[in-house]
């Protein structure tokens, strides 16, 4: 199998429906995260707070390229992927607020959310430990004829781990139906790219495994979407995996406690000016969409977030069952896990 590095591709058209859908989810993701920041300042949020601010185009653009029976493996900046795949704002808020009312019921929290029934594999902290698991989803799809594509995200930092390498190599060997997306946001916590690796493009690593490697402007939601859609199509068609490097920038600290003083101010300013939501709005306006429609999206999302916060704050805390030790192992009666139905069983696009 030959490995070809492909040129960054520009968005080819501005499908208004797609654009509005992208905008809806990106704006919802941001509205939730912005609200979380306010709550943090108000002392209404326990624990940590990470966000994907400025990177929303990647998880949303990519995940919208999936079918209902496909699987996504989000990481900590990928709230948008969770939302597109069906995690509700209230569930997400409950996860952050250490409440019940979300899939792990407080046993895990914040961005460690997901639900296999909806096709979302919940992340763990170890980077990028979901990747070898995602490889297994791919292998199962081929072997069971599930026609399922698995999309996994990671940051630039995670590419330096052994798990990343083993996964990509085996994915190429078995030509699994996986789409591997690196969100290169220029920093791993405080560590700039130059201290992480000595090459210019991580997509070039695709050639080290024997899969296509593609770079894309990660702040261009439509470009991300089209790039991922092609990779999804290739995967579903039996063409094997693709490695995509989406360029973006972490325009805030690693998490709320971090002022990112180690990042040059100009770099942040430069990327703030390339905000993916602003850009998409601009494109939609230029394509003739009325400003009111865009305002309505924002207003609806804001209302939804307000309602979610109220619901989550009202939700009960989880109470210890007292029998936790008996809940560590699945009982013999545990059946198969219910993944989303295969395509021909009629799953709809989110």
């Amino acid at each position, binding site marked *: 199998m030959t490995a070809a590095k492909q040129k960054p591709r520009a968005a080819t058209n501005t499908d208004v429906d797609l654009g509005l859908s992208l905008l809806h989810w990106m704006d919802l993701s941001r509205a939730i995260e912005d609200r979380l920041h306010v709550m943090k300042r108000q002392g209404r949020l326990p624990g940590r707070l990470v966000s994907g601010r400025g990177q929303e185009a990647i998880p949303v653009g990519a995940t919208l390229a999936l079918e209902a029976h496909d699987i996504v493996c989000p990481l900590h900046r990928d709230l948008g992927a969770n939302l597109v795949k069906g995690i509700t704002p209230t569930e997400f808020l409950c996860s952050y607020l250490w409440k019940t009312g979300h*899939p*792990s019921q407080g*046993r*895990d929290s914040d961005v*460690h959310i*997901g*639900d*296999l029934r909806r096709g979302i*594999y*919940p992340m*763990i902290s*170890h980077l990028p*430990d*979901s*990747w*070898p*698991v*995602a*490889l*297994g*989803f*791919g*292998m*199962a*799809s081929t*072997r*069971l004829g*599930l026609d*399922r594509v*698995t999309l996994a995200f990671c940051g630039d930092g995670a590419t330096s781990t*052994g*798990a990343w390498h*083993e*996964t990509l*190599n*085996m994915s190429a*060997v078995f030509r699994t139906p996986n789409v591997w997306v690196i969100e290169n946001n220029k920093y791993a916590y405080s560590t700039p790219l130059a201290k992480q690796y000595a090459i210019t493009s991580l997509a070039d690593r695709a050639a080290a495994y024997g899969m296509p490697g593609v770079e894309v402007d990660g702040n261009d939601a439509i470009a991300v979407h089209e790039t991922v859609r092609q990779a999804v199509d290739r995967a579903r068609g039996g063409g094997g995996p693709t490695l995509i490097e989406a360029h973006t920038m972490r325009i805030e600290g690693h998490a709320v406690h971090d002022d990112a003083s180690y990042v040059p101010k100009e770099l942040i300013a430069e990327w703030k000016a390339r905000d993916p939501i602003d850009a998409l709005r601009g494109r939609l306006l230029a394509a003739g969409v009325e400003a009111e429609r865009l305002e309505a999206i924002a207003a609806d999302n804001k209302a939804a977030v307000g309602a979610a916060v109220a619901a989550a704050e009202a939700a009960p805390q989880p109470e210890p069952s007292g029998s*936790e*030790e008996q*809940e*560590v*192992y*699945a*009982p*013999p009666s*545990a059946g*198969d*896990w219910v*993944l989303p139905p295969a395509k021909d069983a009629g799953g709809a696009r989110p």
Partner: protein
Amino acid sequence: MADDHRSAGWFDTDDAPPVGPIAGDTTYLEAIRAALEDELAEDDRVVLIGEDIGVMGGAFRVTEGLWQRFGDDRVIDTPISEIAITGSCIGMAISGMRPIAEFQFADFISCAYDQLVNEAAKLYFRFGCPVPIVMRAPAGGGVGAGPFHSQSPEAVFAHCPGLKVVCPGSVQDAYDLLRLAVADPNPVLYFEHKALYRALRGPLRRGRPDGALETARIVRPGTDLTLVSYSATLSKALEAAQRLEAEDVSVEVVDLRCVSPIDFPTIAESVRRTTRCIVAHEDTRTLGIGAEIASWLAEHCFYDLDAPVMRVTSPDTPIPAAKSLEQAFLPSAEKIAAAVRECIVQ
């Protein structure tokens, strides 16, 4: 162990005659293979995955013939990637398959430690999603294979809530525990002892086993002392019990079978009768399985015990390679018998 240069594995495991068709007289290794074969034949969801398990049949020839019979899709050879093997099993299991991985040696499970304790062990507790994977690994010493091909990693994983760990010590259990492991909806580590592969023989009953995975079993009744063991050390424990019979000491031998979770009721019932207990295993002493059993008994059977619970284990060192050193390192029937003699006079 002989120095036969044509033995069927990377290390000589025995001087037994070449493997024949499975019959009344079955080896431990053949029993494992039979369980794999029956699982593959009866359940489409089962796949084997690992390094060199296909055309070659594995470093110890455990999977010999299975690739030929079931093909590339069911018996999957991989690159040397323990992390990816383990993670992919998790993904396949969640997708409805029943993967059985083989580590070439149990020592190499160290490379997959993170995936096992962080991904596999915790997913059910966190999100209610079962992870039915089986990780097979040839463990243990006694064949002069040195510090990196002889380890007994069971206690490390027994410490981790969410994993089950079985260590068969008989031919029938080599088969039964493997099939029970596949049927279990949880991640199960199955440590097969390489020194037993061709050395242990016995009749084998094939077919889906009854009973639960996590049950210990009294394999030799006795009245003076309870001797708890598992895996290859079980044979040494039985040999010690045999020898002590001649000295009029009646030793009850309990085969632990599953070292996590531990079947404490069976052990306690026995110890309450005998009032004395020794745990014998090959893993090193500090925080080996014996530590959990001894401390559990010390807490729950304090008033039943007439003597301290003793442990007969390997010393706290790496496993030396040279046979002369390895023999001194490993527990033996003689060391176990000596401990029993010491214990019953207290």
